[in-house]
């Protein structure tokens, strides 16, 4: 028995929030013998429905549970006889623990070996990746438009983002046996300048610092207004930026990409004619 191989196969029915799982103990030995649901009535040889067997698939509150199957190898003839005999045909005995959306062992799931004629599907890492993706907390967008104060027509405006707005983020979703980490990396920022023009930058931009030549353009993300915002609503252009995030995932020896995410932010920017400054 010491050399028994364990094959952990997880099945995600619907992904849940939990990262840490409690110990699968929820009853005394008396209670462990109880099969208050159909689980104990799984007859040897019954066609397995791994996707459904014993799993509460209610999706209330936006999440269901999942079951983890462990294959039970090398059951002895006496054990098999007690379980009702080894069913004919292909299949295997599994130890199954099911969890609810909060990671608690479901009360009604018996502590019971089940016979499945088809192996439960392994955890699909791509599905788990979706869960990880939903756990990503992408930063809010903080815009910096420099030099500070009103921008001037025909003078370079430097566009940049707070460093915290442009930083790779990752999140990990775990079910027993499998972890998948999704990583979001910002790839580009599309600036809508409010005057009808757009600027595409492939980085967070460079903040203008005092002492920098006002006539110098941003090295990587800048714009030059050609008209003032005097005629715009409120006397200011609304500058908005949309950051595109490339999301990749890795886990269980696999990996891939997920359709991207975006974050956005906006600020009002007043653009004045330069002569106003000169005269001022």
């Amino acid at each position, binding site marked *: 028995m010491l050399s028994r191989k364990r094959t952990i196969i997880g099945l995600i029915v619907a992904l849940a929030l939990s990262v840490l799982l409690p110990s699968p103990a929820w009853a005394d030995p008396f*209670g*462990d013998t109880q099969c208050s649901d159909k689980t104990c009535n799984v007859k040897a040889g019954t066609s397995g429905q791994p996707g459904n067997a014993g799993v509460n698939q209610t999706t209330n509150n936006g999440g269901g549970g999942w079951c983890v199957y462990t294959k039970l190898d090398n059951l002895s003839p006496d054990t098999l006889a007690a379980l009702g005999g080894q069913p004919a045909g292909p299949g295997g005995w599994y130890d199954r623990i099911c969890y609810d959306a909060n990671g608690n062992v479901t009360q009604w799931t018996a502590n019971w070996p089940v016979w499945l004629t088809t192996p439960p599907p392994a955890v699909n890492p791509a599905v788990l990746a979706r869960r990880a993706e939903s756990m990503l907390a992408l930063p809010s967008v903080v815009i910096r438009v420099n030099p500070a104060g009103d921008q001037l027509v025909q003078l370079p405006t430097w566009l940049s983002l707070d460093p915290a707005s442009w930083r790779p983020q990752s999140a990990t979703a775990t079910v027993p046996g499998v972890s998948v980490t999704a990583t979001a990396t910002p790839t580009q920022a599309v600036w809508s300048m409010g005057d009808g023009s757009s600027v595409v930058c492939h980085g967070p931009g460079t903040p203008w610092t005092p002492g920098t030549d006002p006539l110098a353009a941003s090295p990587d993300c800048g714009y030059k207004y050609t008209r003032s915002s005097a005629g715009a609503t409120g006397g200011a252009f609304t500058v908005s930026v949309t950051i595109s995030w490339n999301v990749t995932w890795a886990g269980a020896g696999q990996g891939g990409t997920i359709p991207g995410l975006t974050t956005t932010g906006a600020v009002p920017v007043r653009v004045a004619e330069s002569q106003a400054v000169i005269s001022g």
Partner: protein
Amino acid sequence: MITRSTPRAALALIAMSLVLAGCHSPSRGGRPGPLGTESPSPSPDKQGVTKRDALAAYTGMWNAFAQAGQVPDPDAPDLRRYATGDALKRIVGVLVVYRDQGVVTQGGPVDDPSVTSAVPADAPTEVDVVDCGDSTNWTKHKKATGELIQNDPRGRRHITAVVKLTDGLWKVNTFDVGDIGSC
């Protein structure tokens, strides 16, 4: 007390003598005796023997479960001695899972069973048992470390069982366990 001489009755008589042989010697060997039964008389009446042996099988099953749980060993012979059918299936199933999950038990249950019916009346082959089993001192532990598994509620449970004369021996055939606090 069987006066009819049908083959069926004769078989039952043979079966009963097998039961007596099967149950008396273990109890001399220090096994837990039946609880809550009438004390055997030198010439026990059939109902009394039946009840005693059926209850011995009932408590024997739980004690065998407790013993096997210390290993845990789903193949423990005593389980087969006292349980069959669905009852054996459930206990073996639990022990298989315990073994797979690295769980052992310590201690054992305290039972207080009694017979609620025995049929047929003249030569019972099926006995209904009711019990208030107490798991307070029947704990689950991680085998590797001995650590008590927490969140493991224990207490008194109302239990019903059907004990049947099976191949000449009384064995628990089915049982049903109520919630903690149900008795």
